[in-house]
């Protein structure tokens, strides 16, 4: 710590600064211990646990239906996909085949969740680099999706729409129409996003060449989602381990090779288009059928270990269930994308300025309850 550097007879000393747990750029209760030399970051050490609720321990005493509810509270911006992950694991263990209708609806809502999450991220990204107006533009479109969700499942954020064996209710009669309206609306809005922020020269100067992550490091750090794909590491779970109706749609995985903050930004904008196209392919072809298959009131998984990966808006979420054949899991582990993505922050932020750190952190798109679980 007391390392002193001397440049042209000027002594400079490094000092500590606390970023968080209450800081606008950490988006929640993340605390970063920064070691700084003037404005230059020397070390970033995350201090976690401010919102740890020990969901994994709670899961050990809960039934599988109850566990689904807890996953909403992890990555609250992709709550539907989290729910889906647990339901898929349970269905895989029970060897339960859910109806096609369920699969398609799950995928549509999952992709809408991704769009909503990326809209919020886009707004916050702009805010972090100082353009406050983007926040409201992002929220405008996210609000439309949330309204659609509210109509179908009664909740806007922690949706809880999935249950093991299907969906809690069938979709609202307006659902298809409203989603179609949204697709038309949003297609005109993504170019607006580009005009406001992507093409701005200051924004490009702020983000290009900042926080560069190489492909090898991305894999070694276990990065996933847009963070990894911006480094040219093709890792989309939807491509490699397709689940629900994702094997029925065609989409190209958003990939960039520069690995810098701007590449991560561009990947997410491309994902908005991809998700929109997935929804568009499925929305007209929702098969008729049951929205749920009956399961036992008390679900007991056969003895064994089950692992299910899904792609949330932030990356790869893994659910690892160890069952001994009782109604509770013996051990349940969530492999959360944010946790691994956070671990590489120190690696890519060192050497940059405070402003770079904020921009880099914005493109990691951290959701703290997802990391703290």
């Amino acid at each position, binding site marked *: 710590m007391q390392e002193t550097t001397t440049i042209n007879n000027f002594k400079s000393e490094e000092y500590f*600064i606390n970023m968080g747990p209450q800081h*606008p750029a950490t988006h929640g209760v993340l605390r970063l211990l920064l070691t700084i030399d003037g404005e230059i970051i020397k070390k970033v050490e995350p201090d976690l646990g401010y919102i740890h609720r020990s969901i994994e321990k709670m899961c050990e005493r809960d039934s599988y239906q109850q566990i689904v509810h807890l996953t909403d509270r992890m990555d609250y911006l992709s709550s539907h996909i989290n729910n889906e992950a647990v339901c898929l694991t349970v269905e895989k263990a029970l060897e339960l085949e859910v109806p096609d209708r369920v699969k398609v609806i799950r995928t549509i809502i999952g992709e809408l969740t991704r769009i909503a999450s990326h809209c919020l991220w886009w707004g916050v990204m702009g805010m972090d680099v*100082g*353009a406050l107006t983007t926040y409201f*533009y992002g929220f*405008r479109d996210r609000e439309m999706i949330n309204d659609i969700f509210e109509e179908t499942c009664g909740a806007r954020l922690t949706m809880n729409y999935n249950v093991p064996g299907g969906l809690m209710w069938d979709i609202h009669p307006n659902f298809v129409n409203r989603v179609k309206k949204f697709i038309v609306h949003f297609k005109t809005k993504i170019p607006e996003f580009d005009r406001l922020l992507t093409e*701005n020269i200051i924004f490009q100067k702020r983000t290009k060449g900042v926080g560069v992550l190489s492909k090898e490091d991305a894999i070694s750090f276990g990065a996933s989602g847009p963070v990894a794909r911006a480094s040219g590491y093709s890792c989309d779970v939807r491509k490699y381990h397709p689940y629900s109706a994702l094997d029925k749609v065609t989409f190209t995985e958003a990939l960039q090779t520069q690995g810098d903050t701007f590449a991560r930004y561009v990947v997410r904008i491309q994902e908005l288009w991809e998700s929109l196209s997935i929804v568009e392919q499925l929305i007209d072809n929702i098969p008729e059928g049951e929205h749920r298959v009956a399961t036992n009131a008390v679900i007991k998984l056969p003895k064994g270990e089950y692992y299910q990966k899904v792609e949330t808006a932030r990356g790869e979420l893994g659910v690892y269930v160890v069952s001994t054949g009782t109604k509770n899991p013996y051990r349940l582990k969530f492999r959360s994308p944010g946790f691994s993505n956070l671990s590489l922050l120190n690696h890519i932020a060192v050497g940059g300025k405070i402003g770079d750190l904020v921009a880099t952190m914005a493109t990691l798109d951290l959701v703290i309850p997802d990391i703290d679980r």
Partner: protein
Amino acid sequence: MPETAAQITEMIIIAIIYLGIFSVAGLFLVFMERRVAAWFQLRIGPNRVGYQGLLQTMADALKLVSKELTGTVKADKFLYNLAPYFVIISSLMALGLIPFSKSFQAFDINIGIFFLIAVSSIGVIGILLGGWASNNKYSLIGAMRSGVQTISYELSVGLSLLTMVLLTGSLQLSEMVEVQKHGWLILQGHIPAVIAFMVFMIAGTAETNRAPFDMVEAESELGAGFHTEYSGMKFAYFFLAEFINMFIIAAIATTVFFGAWLSPFGITESLPWLGIIWFLIKTFALVFLMMWFRWTFPRLRVDQLLTLEWKYLLPINLVNIVVMALIVWQKLTIQF
């Protein structure tokens, strides 16, 4: 009453009138900014207190006055309390020179422009003091950034105004306006004047620490920068000073480039009292321009900020002065 006493009394009365007018004007600017921001951001903005929310910022000011003053225990109390006054006084002082109309100008001294630049750069001392005395690392970083930024951009502000002084041949503001009766300076000096105007607006925005140059506050990086530890009325001083400074920059630009209270092509020359209206219209148009910057641009990084000044604006400015000198020498100015 002896003559000196009468003069002093006159000054005090004028000062009080100015203080009254501009505190209210500052609050109105805050209100305007909020409505403009809302307009940019698909919102309505404050519209409940008073007609269309006009009294909203009054209510906010009342709230701030009645708030408890908090501060850090280990702060340097004397400097901590002194800092906001430096900032607010320096910005109020500059107002005295602005020629709102032919008869509405408190001081018309012969070094007018020079005085304006000098006074408006005192404010940075307040910011540095505030950041240092708060005993908070974020405040200190903010204050240091402010020091670097103001010292750098002061050059561009000064040089771009100097370019225009070449045209007028006087630093006195009333004389500068007089010269513009033959066409606003931005027309008289045509190309170099337009360049000088653009440089002035960029540097002026930077000097008032407003986005995209708000490195000093940079809420997503430093919390609130130098005024993190200030609350209540002391915070309000910093806040108000920012808006008055914005007004001053716009007012200087109006005076130097757009003919102050002169109407375009002299269309209302017979009605001199309209001068103040013209002045305010021009100034608020420029204020709106600065708000437009703020609500559309992202923030620069601190090293990019310095690169912009030292590698681009300053060389452009120096060349521009030479060009302007040549134009004046060869009498290539446009005059009506």
